[in-house]
């Protein structure tokens, strides 16, 4: 013990007189280890604390405070009591002592064993003895932190201080300038307000001391290490100012005053603060300021010079109106909402009749903002403005006027939120239903396309107002839409009509079933008006309206009938139209509500019918004369996603049935489930019939049936199916057939459960593939390669351990004289999502980040391969690399790029345009936030990009110009030296023969011109 006290004394001596700061740490360690107690330390400090030199005393207190900072957790209540008394006493000492005292007190505020009453006593001494704003930055921060700590743990005690606490705080922060401290002070003020401290008569003082910072004007210094932003300060201060209605009488005049400012950000801050505060207020808080607020808001919207201010003003108006609407319920005297809205209407309404003047739009926007605030506001505003708008629409003759009116009315309808009205309240627009309908219908018959388009939006909005339109209105609307579908030539109008029909069908399926669909059916079946554009619109309309199951039952037969007629030739459809019909079916499969009912429809009707039609067509053969359009590759390829989308969404039982039906059809020739069953008994779809491909290519439809099923669904006869698919993929000579067989095989392998049978399957397949690949004279090397790449993909996606064997094989093929370029392209397929198989939509086993994983495991191999490859093979490696990097997520590209940069730059000078293009698309996202490695290579990058802007290939020219454009956003001092050279080089593509290239060049050059130029960048 004696030794310890000697040690303590020497530590104190060394710290206080020797000025060795590190001894504080040692002392703290001693206390923590129990070598001596804090009170012993106080004792040992005795001499220094009694020194006549304030600096020595300060040094002594500093040692104690630093020790407390380390070990406040270990103190006992008794010790804390002594220490608090000690510190409080020291607050009265010389000012140089104050900083370490505050440090010590702060440490004590963190103690859990603070004795009752000590918080109050500490604060009383603090507020009494310390003038906070004459302290240094760090000490002020210390005070704020003390308050924050105590507010967290001793709330009840502090509240016991009553208004003294608020007053003490107000005095402490009055005049604070440092943004870091302001954030702390705002936090305290926010706590005071939100946690219900008594403001008493100091509400105004608290408001004054905080609101003097409003609006926040702060620009962080360059390279600010504290990272405090203007936005943070704005948010915190706003939370203080808007936190209580007690501030309303001070805040609202302040907002009105600041809105007069010329500074845009001050205006915006004021408007946002207004929006925030009224959500806390009641109408009585606002009453005396409504006129002033309205005058300011109106001015900001009427004379706005910025869209941001305008939208902030409108939002504030909505919030204000909604506050007034809320309060009305409890209001006894005057109805402040209607008083306010009268004011708004008074100033805005008459502008709605001055269609040639510029205040139409701002007025409409203000009224709409108010209208959207509440149901009551909607009623008041619409009752006041709609009659005049409707009247004007019928009396005005000028098209531009009518369009303006229609747009204004449309936005009023949109501003009324549909969910607002409760059931028994009157609908906002019901009084105007009839006039609005006739307005829409008359606009739909106009010849002006923009009127027609606006009318379709208005029709949609009206229909979305619940319970507004009558059945007869919907029927009339359908007549108009049908007419436009069949006759309107303008693309924009047709698109709008189809969109509107889709929205209406969602709400009124019955009307569509009885009216529109039969009409479209007649149209599709008719030979006379077989106008391609009309058919096209009808086909997309059928898809657009089919979101409700009941509609799907009616619409899909019409589409299937198109395919049927096309096959038999009873109605002449172009291949393009047949494809469109398939697309419509696919859209329906994607969008229809997922129910048992729609599942049945696809399972029972659509899929069997598609298979049946395709089979009939296949059996007719591929002779060029009179062959069915359904054997065309584009048509089959369009059918696949119909089936696979439907199957991926089927309930498991139905899915299982579909799978087994399909397997028995393809393996056994079982046609029993197909409609129009007049098929021969010997059908072998998975065997090639000589040179004929019309049957073998049907295997692509099998992909749709078996590869998109949920993984839980068992595919029957899987082994036999796999073996026949493998056989077909390696022997067939027809590209669609063998590729489809390989994809189908891969799709099944991907979902096959892990185990020996999968391993042996892969190994045998691999053996077979390698045998063909190794024999350079094999006629089916391409087929073997196709199977290899699809199986590689199937395994790579699920992280199968054998995938590396297959992908290594692919890498080795980059050196192959014939297959090298194909292998390089193959990596693009490997890394991208395929549309019809092996994607998450069809329940494939796709692990997250498989691309990154593949990349990180293989990039080194590629680089090595590149370095080792003979010159003429190098492009294959570059292409493979750029294909892989291109598909990586941007984040990964950015981190991986430095290592690959020189290779990618090499790739830019590779003569292969595919490589150039793919590399450019890799580079582009990286250029947005260039890593230092890239900036170091700027010279090489710029020269190579500039060389590519004269490429013979348009897409390369466009992509390289795009990259040069992106370069203009690099740090100015890095790229300024290139400015003249880039501008000179960009002069040439301004005269490119392709407009798209010129347009890219213009944009890039414009940015480079602005670089380093006044007012530019």
């Amino acid at each position: 013990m004696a030794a310890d006290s000697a040690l303590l004394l020497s530590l104190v001596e060394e710290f206080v007189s020797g000025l060795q700061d590190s001894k504080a740490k040692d002392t703290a360690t001693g206390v923590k280890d129990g070598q001596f107690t804090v009170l012993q330390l106080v004792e040992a400090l005795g001499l220094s604390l009694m020194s006549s030199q304030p600096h020595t005393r300060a040094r002594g207190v500093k040692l104690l405070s630093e020790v407390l900072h380390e070990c406040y957790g270990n103190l006992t209540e008794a010790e804390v009591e002594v220490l608090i008394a000690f510190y409080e006493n020291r607050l009265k000492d010389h000012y140089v002592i104050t900083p370490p005292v505050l440090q010590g007190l702060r440490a004590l505020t963190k103690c859990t064993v603070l004795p009752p009453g000590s918080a109050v006593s500490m604060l009383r001494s603090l507020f009494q003895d310390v003038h906070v704003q004459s302290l240094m930055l760090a000490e002020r921060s210390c005070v704020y932190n003390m308050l924050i700590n105590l507010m967290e743990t001793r709330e009840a005690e502090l509240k016991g201080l009553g208004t003294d606490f608020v007053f003490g705080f107000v005095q402490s922060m009055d005049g604070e300038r440092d943004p870091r401290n302001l954030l702390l002070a705002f936090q305290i003020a926010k706590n005071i307000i939100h946690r219900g401290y008594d403001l008493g008569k100091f509400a105004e003082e608290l408001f004054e001391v905080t609101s003097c910072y409003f609006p926040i004007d702060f620009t962080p210094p360059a390279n600010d290490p504290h990272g405090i932003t203007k936005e943070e300060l704005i948010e915190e201060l706003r939370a203080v100012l808007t936190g209580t209605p007690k501030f309303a009488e001070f805040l609202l005049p302040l907002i009105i005053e600041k809105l007069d400012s010329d500074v845009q950000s001050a205006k915006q801050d004021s408007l946002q603060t207004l929006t925030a505060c009224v959500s806390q207020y009641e109408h009585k808080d606002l009453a005396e300021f409504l006129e002033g607020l309205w005058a300011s808001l109106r001015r900001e919207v009427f004379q706005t010079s910025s869209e941001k201010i305008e939208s902030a003003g409108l939002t504030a108006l909505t919030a204000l109106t909604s506050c007034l609407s809320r309060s009305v319920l409890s209001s006894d005297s005057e109805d402040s909402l209607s008083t306010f809205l009268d004011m708004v209407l008074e100033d805005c309404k008459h502008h709605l009749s001055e269609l040639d003047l510029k205040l139409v739009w701002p007025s409409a926007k203000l009224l709409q903002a108010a209208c959207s605030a509440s149901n009551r506001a909607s009623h008041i505003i619409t009752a006041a403005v709609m009659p005049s708008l409707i009247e004007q629409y019928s009396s005005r003759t000028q098209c531009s006027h009518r369009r303006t009116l229609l747009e204004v009315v449309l936005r009023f309808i949109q501003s009324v939120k549909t969910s607002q009205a409760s059931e028994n309240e009157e609908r906002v627009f019901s009084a105007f239903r009839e006039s609005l309908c006739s307005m829409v219908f008359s606009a739909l018959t106009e010849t002006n396309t923009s009127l027609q388009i606006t009318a379709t939006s208005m029709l949609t909005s009206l229909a979305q107002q619940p319970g507004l339109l009558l059945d007869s209105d919907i029927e009339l609307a359908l007549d108009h839409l049908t007419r436009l579908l069949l006759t309107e030539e303008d693309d924009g109008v047709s698109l709008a009509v189809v969109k509107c029909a889709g929205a209406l069908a969602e709400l009124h399926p019955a009307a569509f079933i009885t009216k529109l669909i039969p009409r479209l059916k007649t149209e599709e079946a008719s030979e006379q008006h077989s106008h391609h554009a009309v058919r096209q619109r009808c086909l997309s309309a059928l898809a657009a309206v089919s979101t409700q199951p009941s509609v799907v039952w009616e619409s899909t037969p019409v589409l299937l009938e198109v395919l049927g007629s096309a096959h038999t030739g009873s109605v002449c459809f172009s291949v393009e139209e047949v494809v469109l019909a398939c697309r419509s079916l696919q859209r329906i499969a994607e969008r229809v509500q997922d129910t048992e009912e729609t599942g049945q429809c696809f399972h029972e009707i659509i899929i069997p019918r598609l298979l049946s039609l395709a089979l009939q067509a296949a059996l007719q053969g591929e002779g060029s004369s009179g062959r069915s359009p359904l054997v065309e590759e584009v048509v089959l390829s369009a059918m696949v996603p119909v089936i696979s989308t439907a199957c991926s969404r089927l309930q498991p039982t139905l899915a299982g049935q579909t799978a087994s039906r399909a397997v028995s059809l393809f393996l056994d020739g079982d046609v029993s489930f197909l409609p129009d069953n007049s098929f021969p008994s010997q059908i072998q779809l998975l065997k090639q019939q000589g040179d004929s491909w019309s049957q073998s290519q049907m295997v692509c439809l099998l992909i749709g049936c078996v590869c998109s099923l949920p993984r839980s669904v068992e595919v029957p006869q899987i082994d036999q199916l796999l073996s026949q698919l493998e056989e077909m993929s390696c022997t067939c000579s027809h590209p669609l057939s063998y590729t489809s067989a390989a994809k189908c095989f891969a799709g099944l392998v991907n979902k096959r459960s892990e185990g020996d049978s999968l391993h042996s399957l892969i190994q045998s397949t691999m053996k077979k593939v390698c045998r063909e690949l190794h024999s350079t004279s094999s006629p089916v090397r391409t087929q073997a390669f196709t199977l290899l790449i699809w199986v590689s993909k199937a395994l790579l996606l699920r992280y199968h351990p054998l995938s590396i064997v297959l992908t290594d094989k692919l890498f080795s093929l980059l050196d192959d004289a014939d297959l090298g370029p194909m292998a390089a392209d193959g990596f693009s397929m490997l890394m991208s999502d395929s549309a019809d198989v092996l994607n998450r939509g069809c329940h494939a086993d796709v692990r997250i980040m498989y691309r990154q994983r593949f990349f990180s495991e293989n990039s080194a191999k590629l680089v090595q391969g590149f370095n080792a490859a003979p010159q003429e093979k190098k492009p294959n490696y570059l292409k493979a690399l750029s294909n892989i990097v291109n598909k990586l997520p941007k984040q990964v590209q950015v981190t991986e790029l430095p290592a690959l940069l020189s290779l990618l730059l090499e790739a830019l000078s590779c003569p292969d345009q595919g490589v150039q293009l793919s590399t450019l698309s890799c580079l582009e996202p990286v250029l947005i936030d260039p890593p230092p490695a890239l900036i170091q290579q700027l010279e090489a990058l710029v020269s190579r990009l500039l060389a590519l802007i004269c490429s013979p290939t348009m897409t390369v020219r466009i992509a390289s110009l795009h990259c040069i454009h992106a370069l203009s956003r690099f740090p100015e001092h890095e790229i300024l030296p290139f400015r003249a050279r880039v501008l000179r080089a960009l002069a040439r593509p301004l005269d490119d023969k392709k407009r798209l290239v010129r347009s890219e060049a213009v944009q890039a050059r414009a940015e480079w011109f602005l670089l380093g130029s006044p007012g530019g960048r």
Partner: protein
Amino acid sequence: MSGGTQLENANPVIFQRSGERLLTASDEDEEVHDPIDDREIFDLIRSINDPEHPLSLEELNVVEQVRVKVNDTESTVDIEFTPTIPHCSMATLIGLSIKVKLLRSLPDRFKIDVHITPGTHASEEAVNKQLADKERVAAALENSSLLEVVNQCLSTRSI
């Protein structure tokens, strides 16, 4: 109303923007030579910002496609622009912005004439003569405060 802003024409009539030019198959065909046409020139200038409004020249109807004439084979471009009000003091600046935009965007073989739509401005002749004087235009662009305003008109809108 007392606003903080002092615009000459505080509340201009706003016109709708035309959409992006639609892509055609020939635009994407390598072999086809797309001549520079009126719409292409119009697309270059329609998005120029007005010096005093957060609006484009197209939205203010200062430029219209019918007032753009280009002859690609003879390398000439002729633009008429219509100031929003007949005493607009910004007319020269707007014309200068159009001219600079075209100088930066067109191949240098083009002769570019920019003038005011006849009868729409009080100082039409004086403004036209200034815009046609390339020496004055060159000197103006060496004036950094003027260049700053022009560049702001030509910047992609950031408000």
